């Protein structure tokens, strides 16, 4: 598989947030891990985020930024908070009773935890694909059209176009174009996951969050999903949680390593995998724990 060209797509991180990160991860030189290309805009900017499930703190002072149109992989052992972190980015944790977030998360210029933010509108800007494919028990067409419909699109023709474009983007069109009215439940696991990606694309998001999108799939389907991520990163900013080191190395330009609710290290994927600045990162990626 083609390796991500990390030289071209780089991020801007304000020196201020670099400093924060530096103070967060003591002793490491994070400027080395954070490429600073003035051309790439920061899409997501996370500052000093603490997150709580009731009284249990799940994230400790996490700060990082994701450049526009890039893929950032979140890695770390189970329970390290990477999924929780992912779900703070579209406020998915809001639907869990008793959760609380401190700090700020900005999507472009907007603080997404500001009181005036419309969570529903936010979620149509920040789409999400889950570990388990979750087709609705409806037809393929209705699955894809769900997002646009609740956003107010009623024109059958427009919906048809959206469905076609989304399915093509998700590389599923050729397999399902003759049976759009069949139940989505009848698709194979890999197809269902691509359907879920297409469904997310149909809402026309800017950011796509993926929570281990390929962990339940066979190698062939996984490869298709990875190819897809490769295509999608040209247009979308993608944050992906994965357990699979090779996958992180293959699809992402940036990698963030979480451990016990803390962000241990974040940087260019190549850099982080070949020359991690933290001992814990090295232990994890070389398979000594996790």
């Amino acid at each position, binding site marked *: 598989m083609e390796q991500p060209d990390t030289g071209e797509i780089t991020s801007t991180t304000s020196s201020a947030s670099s400093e924060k990160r530096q103070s967060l991860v003591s002793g490491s030189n994070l400027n080395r891990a954070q490429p600073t290309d003035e051309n790439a805009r920061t899409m997501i900017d996370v500052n000093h985020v603490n997150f709580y499930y009731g009284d249990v703190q799940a994230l400790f002072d996490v700060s990082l930024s994701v450049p526009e149109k890039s893929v950032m992989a979140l890695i770390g052992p189970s329970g390290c908070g990477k999924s929780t972190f992912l779900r703070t980015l579209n406020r*998915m944790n809001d639907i869990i009773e008793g959760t609380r977030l401190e700090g700020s998360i900005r999507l472009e210029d907007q603080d997404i935890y500001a009181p005036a933010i419309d969570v529903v509108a936010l979620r149509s800007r920040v789409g999400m694909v889950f570990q388990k494919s*979750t087709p609705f028990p409806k037809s393929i067409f209705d699955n894809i059209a769900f997002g646009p419909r609740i956003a107010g699109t009623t024109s059958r023709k427009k919906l048809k176009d959206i469905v076609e474009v989304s399915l093509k983007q998700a590389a599923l069109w050729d397999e399902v174009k003759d049976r759009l009215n069949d139940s989505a439940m009848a698709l194979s696991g890999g197809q269902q996951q691509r359907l879920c990606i297409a469904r997310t694309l149909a809402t026309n998001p800017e950011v796509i969050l993926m929570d281990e999108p390929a962990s339940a799939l066979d190698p062939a389907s996984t490869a298709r999903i990875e190819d897809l991520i490769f295509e999608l990163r040209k247009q979308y900013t993608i944050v992906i949680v994965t357990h699979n080191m090779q996958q992180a190395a293959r699809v992402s330009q940036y990698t963030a390593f979480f451990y016990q609710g803390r962000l241990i290290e974040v940087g260019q994927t190549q850099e982080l995998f070949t020359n991690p600045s933290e001992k814990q990162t090295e232990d994890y990626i070389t398979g000594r724990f996790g």
Partner: protein
Amino acid sequence: MLSLFSCAFLSVLTTLGILYVLFSNAVYSFDSETTAFFQEVSIGDFLTDTEWTPQYKNDRHFGILPLALGTLKITGIAALIGLPIGLAGAIYLSEYASPRMRNAIKPTLEVLAGIPTVVYGYFALIFVTPYLLQPFFSDLLGFEVKIFNAASAGIVVGIMIIPMVSSLSEDVLRSVPRSLREAGFALGGTRFDVSTKIVLPAALSGIIASFLLAISRAIGETMAVTIAAGLLTTTSLNPFESSQTMTAYIVNVSSGDTPVGSIEYKSLYAVAITLFFATLAMNILSQWVLKRFREVYQ
């Protein structure tokens, strides 16, 4: 093991016994000395005659229609009230209510389900008719609302089936996987979008089954309608008229002084077997709906 089997077997035996009694009195008597209802009255008359007058010695008619219509009318009103409220309650409990709220509401609903039906009948007669129906429909709109009327009985039967609909429907709504809801929220759905466009359709088979069970409960409801709906056997569709149901007829005749073995007495069994088949059909239908339309989640 054996004792458990005996218990199960006993309930089967009881059912068979009841069926035998119904069948031998209504359809075909196995005793040559007596005759069953349908050996004296043709099924054709029973189904097509529009009058039900077993008590008129000289002009007996055995058309089930007025009684069936009475049952249908009250069941219809009950369904109109109980199903939407029950379903709305279920959606609220499953999708909107906080755990604290749910813990407060569910026991209340169970209390509603635990109230003896005779109390509902009394409630219809002394509250619903004089304080709800008459002020509104007769004083304001000019209908004539009888003291004993189908509407009040239908309303209380509707209230009676609310707990059943909401608790059964809530169970099926809650069994829709959380991941489906999350996917809906992640696509920018509001709570209302997710409840009505994802969870509700996904749970539809179970909800319809709960509706059918509730309707079959309404058909079989006896005490409240006996008290509140009156004794008039009529083919009128006016809900403010008195209207006897199949169940109320059985109560009235079996508690009266009808001689055993008379045709009037046997007519009880004919009505009972009709009721039996009506509720059986509803139960079978609800089972079929559940099986046929159940969504299988991974």
